[in-house]
């Protein structure tokens, strides 16, 4: 996805908008159609956002306020809200024995490292299959693509056995290494290397005497930068969301990612501070939400590649 194609996409969008304005009468929607559409879209929006809204409200409540007060609004006046939040925050840290931010830090570490390593190796492999001819290429691509259809969680059990045999279970590497490999990342890397690394540029660099490693790390990576952001995002979220893998691999609470830590709290029989837990849930998804909001267009780029190629 070069700058030129992005500019073109924007131009296409503008053209569509103009087309909307001067639709022929036959295609112009009637008032009833318009109303129904808006109603459906708004109802769907309420469905998707209500649980998040409720979690925000609940995160300010004590257990008795959760059962006793109006579920749709805060239990205390707005000016007392900071105190209620502080109280629940203290409860949260108490339940986690002050491990909460450590868990968030672990999640960040696992997601960043595996997404970074995974992105670079995916792009390298994608570039190799897009721009070089070598024996066994077709078979290798076929196997990796087949792995995209493999139910990933089924692998977790034998992965645990392997890492256990290597004495790597209950280490950070046990979560990071399996998350470094993404057949979807390889697929995106290949598609982007095919479409946005011109052969002429590679030829010219070779004639100038540049080595292959230098060509890749100084030129190709720069050309593939937008693609790499997309792959990074997908792998980051996949690692952040992974539950079964850390559940299998990790036994010491100090290594837990935030998802597993919160699950551990919920599964305690005596646990009752649901409001504090909701606060943990919200704080724990904040990094991902920020990535979503700031890097929206890279999401769409990745999904578009999947849609068009599929």
């Amino acid at each position: 996805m070069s700058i030129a194609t992005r500019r073109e996409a924007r131009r296409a969008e503008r053209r569509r908008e103009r087309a909307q304005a001067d639709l022929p009468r036959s295609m112009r929607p009637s008032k009833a159609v318009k109303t129904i559409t808006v109603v459906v879209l708004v109802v769907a929006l309420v469905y998707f956002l209500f649980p998040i809204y409720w979690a925000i409200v609940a995160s300010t409540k004590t257990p008795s306020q959760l059962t006793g007060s109006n579920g749709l609004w805060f239990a205390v006046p707005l000016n007392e809200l900071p105190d209620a939040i502080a109280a629940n925050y203290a409860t949260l840290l108490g339940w986690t024995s002050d491990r909460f931010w450590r868990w968030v830090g672990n999640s960040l570490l696992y997601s960043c490292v595996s997404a970074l390593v995974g992105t670079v190796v995916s792009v390298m492999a994608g570039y190799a299959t897009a721009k070089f001819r070598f024996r066994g290429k077709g078979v290798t691509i076929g196997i990796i693509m087949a792995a995209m259809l493999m139910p990933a969680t089924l692998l977790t059990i034998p992965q645990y056995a392997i890492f256990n045999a290597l004495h790597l279970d209950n280490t950070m590497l046990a979560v990071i290494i399996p998350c470094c490999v993404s057949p979807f990342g390889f697929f995106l890397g290949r598609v982007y290397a095919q479409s946005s690394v011109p052969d002429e540029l590679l030829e010219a660099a070779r004639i100038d005497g540049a080595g292959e490693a230098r060509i890749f790390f100084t030129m190709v990576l720069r050309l593939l930068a937008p693609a790499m952001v997309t792959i990074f995002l997908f792998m980051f979220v996949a690692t952040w969301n992974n539950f079964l893998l850390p559940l299998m691999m990790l036994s010491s609470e100090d290594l837990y990612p935030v998802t597993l830590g919160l699950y551990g709290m919920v599964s305690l029989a005596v646990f009752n501070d649901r409001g504090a837990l909701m606060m943990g849930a919200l704080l724990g998804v904040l990094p991902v939400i920020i990535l979503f909001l700031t890097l929206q267009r890279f999401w769409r780029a990745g999904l578009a590649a999947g849609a068009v190629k599929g």
Partner: protein
Amino acid sequence: MTAHTTTAPARRRRSPAARREERTGWLFMLPFVLLFLLVFIVPIGYAIYSSFFQQVATGGGAYGGGELVNRFVGLENFRYVVTSGEFWAGMGRVLLYTVIQVPLMIVAALVLAMLIDSFVVKHVSGFRLGYFLPYAIPGVIASIIWVYLYNGQISPIVKGLAALGVNVDFFASNVVLGSMVNITTWTFTGYNMLIFLSALQAIPHELYEAARIDGANGWQVAMKVKLPNVRGAALLAMLLSIVGTIQLFNEPQVMQTADPGISYSYTPMMMAFNTSRGFLTPKGDGPASAIAIVMAVIAGLLAMAYAFVERKVSES
């Protein structure tokens, strides 16, 4: 996005340049391939190997205490899985879940994408973002939030419905699967909607022009121009969703914390996990691997059956 291949001059004999190209290609492949071997191929190989073994204690007498050794048991683990009533009950639940959840989600995502892409509403970026937001919530956290929203004591939904005279127990044994369907649908509909939206926006503008000249109305454009153009994306999303739902684990695992009715073998994936963890007998890698392999075979057969039916339908 055209896929153009390398335009290097044809080299029939294996010239030094070709050999160098081969070496460079493999060097760039190497890191990914090594990791892929470690994370995919070796575990698959190990799962197949270990599925022929069971751990047994030797010498320890009736109360155990002996050393655990792997004993070759042939196809015993597979016999256990395919004759296990629990396994098939779990598989039945998952298949029922798939049959309800996947079409529901894909149709909802398609409808929302078409409405957003229709020329009816002008400012759509807020809707688009709002629908996609649940995808940012990890499945476990989403499940925890919904489990609370299903809880009669604290949920404004349950209380609100009760006030209207509708009493629902989201954990009742014949409802709980639907409660899980809702969690997955909530999380992934927006994701699939964005895929469809991308496919819709890739439709060349000329097609709309042509439809317009032919005097088509909005409904006809949606059905005759848009729908055929997102078919490919929809079928792929459906296939990936089917493969995904077979592995159902997070939602029931979290719901188990609030609902003792959900057993250790509620879904095949939970059964594999709990077998590997030793909560179910026979326990250990062998039986757990056998469960995973049978699941993979069933998922593969389903995917193939789906692809076959899909081709037959599109031919006729």
